[in-house]
């Protein structure tokens, strides 16, 4: 079984400041890692994913995340945020051994990023 911890429930930042949203996971098997974003009144949208290869993953809207296996972390970063980045961000993992109909995601509690002018 896997678990995901998002240490910060809320992160307020000013516009154009850098931001890092932290995510740690635990698993007894190899995992795939994901960040989802939820804008108000919308569904969960995939920001980026790590499957294999380069540990630095780039996603949409200028976000990137780095997979650190030794620290079991997958922190999300953006060098300069915009007001429009205000949303809830969810880190998630899936077990590489599961697939198809057994595929499921384990989510963290989410981090509310609020970008202030």
């Amino acid at each position, binding site marked *: 079984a896997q678990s995901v911890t998002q240490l910060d429930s809320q992160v307020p930042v000013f516009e154009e400041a850098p931001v890092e949203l932290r995510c740690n996971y635990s698993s007894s098997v190899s995992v795939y890692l994901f960040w989802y974003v939820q804008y108000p*009144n*919308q569904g969960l949208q995939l920001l980026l994913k790590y499957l294999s290869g380069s540990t630095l993953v780039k996603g949409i809207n200028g976000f990137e995340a780095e997979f650190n296996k030794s620290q079991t972390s997958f922190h999300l970063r953006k060098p300069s945020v915009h007001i429009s980045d205000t949303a809830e961000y*969810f880190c998630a993992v*899936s077990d590489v051994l599961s*697939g*198809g109909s057994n*595929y*499921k995601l384990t989510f*963290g509690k989410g981090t509310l990023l609020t970008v202030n002018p």
Partner: protein
Amino acid sequence: EPEVTQTPSHQVTQMGQEVILRCVPISNHLYFYWYRQILGQKVEFLVSFYNNEISEKSEIFDDQFSVERPDGSNFTLKIRSTKLEDSAMYFCASAKVRVPSNVLTFGAGSRLTVL
């Protein structure tokens, strides 16, 4: 861009009543899922559905819950007799292909409030 559509967006019901939450997955997707998020808690897996049967379900998905795909387009979650603790945001998701790295497409959610 194709999307997963959920209705209603918000439903208020009395404890003990039956509730049906509806989802229209993306048309060529084959795998369907329900997740839920109780306010302030994690998004939790409820059930996965493929080839007209449940593939996997969590401990949360007890006998009060059921899913079906009645007409080839809708995917429904029924709660037979709602409890206060069923109040949550329910997300439907679908996926096209059978690989672990597949991306789930989520709907906007249905907020259920049980009074």
